[in-house]
């Protein structure tokens, strides 16, 4: 299991909460060659992402390796409150997972 792969931020401003996430992940296509060995680097990419607010789903996403290495993602929602818990989880095609949780801040 991956650990500490997610940098997550949730900021409340003018009635909107903006969630920003930066995930450490290779997002390998499977068609890139290792420069030293000349062998193909196996595909490894995040397939599923879920973001919850106080345990309730806000956003889910399905990705391919068309998302850049070290994925970045941001979105906004109405009605969040300072201190609400925002949790992001991801799972990749090899079954690796990670989660992170933060409080909504000002």
């Amino acid at each position, binding site marked *: 299991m991956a650990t500490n792969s997610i940098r997550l931020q949730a900021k409340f401003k003018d009635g*909107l909460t903006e969630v920003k996430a930066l995930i450490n992940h290779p*997002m390998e*296509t*499977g*068609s*890139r*060659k290792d420069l030293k060995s000349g062998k*193909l680097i*196996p*595909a490894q990419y995040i*397939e*599923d*992402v*879920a973001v*919850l*607010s106080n345990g*309730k*789903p*806000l*956003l*889910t*996403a*399905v*990705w*391919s*390796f*068309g*998302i*850049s*290495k070290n*994925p*970045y*993602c*941001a*979105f*906004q*929602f*109405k*009605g*969040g409150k300072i201190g609400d818990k925002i949790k992001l*989880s991801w*799972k990749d*095609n*090899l*079954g690796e*997972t990670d*989660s992170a949780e933060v409080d909504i801040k000002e």
Partner: protein
Amino acid sequence: MTNLPRRSFLKGTLATGAAAVAATVLPFSAMADWPKAAFEAKTVEDAIMALLGSPDTVVSTAITIEVPEIAENGAVVPVKVSSTLPKVESITLISEKNPVPLVAQFKFESDAVQPFIATRIKMSETSNVVAVLKSEGKLYVARKEVKVTIGGCGG
């Protein structure tokens, strides 16, 4: 590398990926099933059909795609999509000429989520970025071209 072995290889890896998903218990029930067929589609139309269940899209000026006009590095192309359409259920991003055109689908699971998404995608060559939004059961589409100097998909 020519296109053919690469494509068959992609097919192989996608199949393996799906098998891995089947063998794994999803850690969080909120996660969607990964739409394998849509990610295997080779054209924009096939991807939209496989993912969203209909090929019928309406070109909409209510969708704004923010992308750089020229991307020197196709491996990292910033994309922002926003819209004034009501009740947007999902935003789908497609890079027209990628070996796997479908890049991502973001589903809004709550009415509170605004019709906006920002991310970074890979583009193998100069082409349109296509955004498909589902709003009140209909599919709306917008396209914007990015000139790619160095492709960012393969090796």
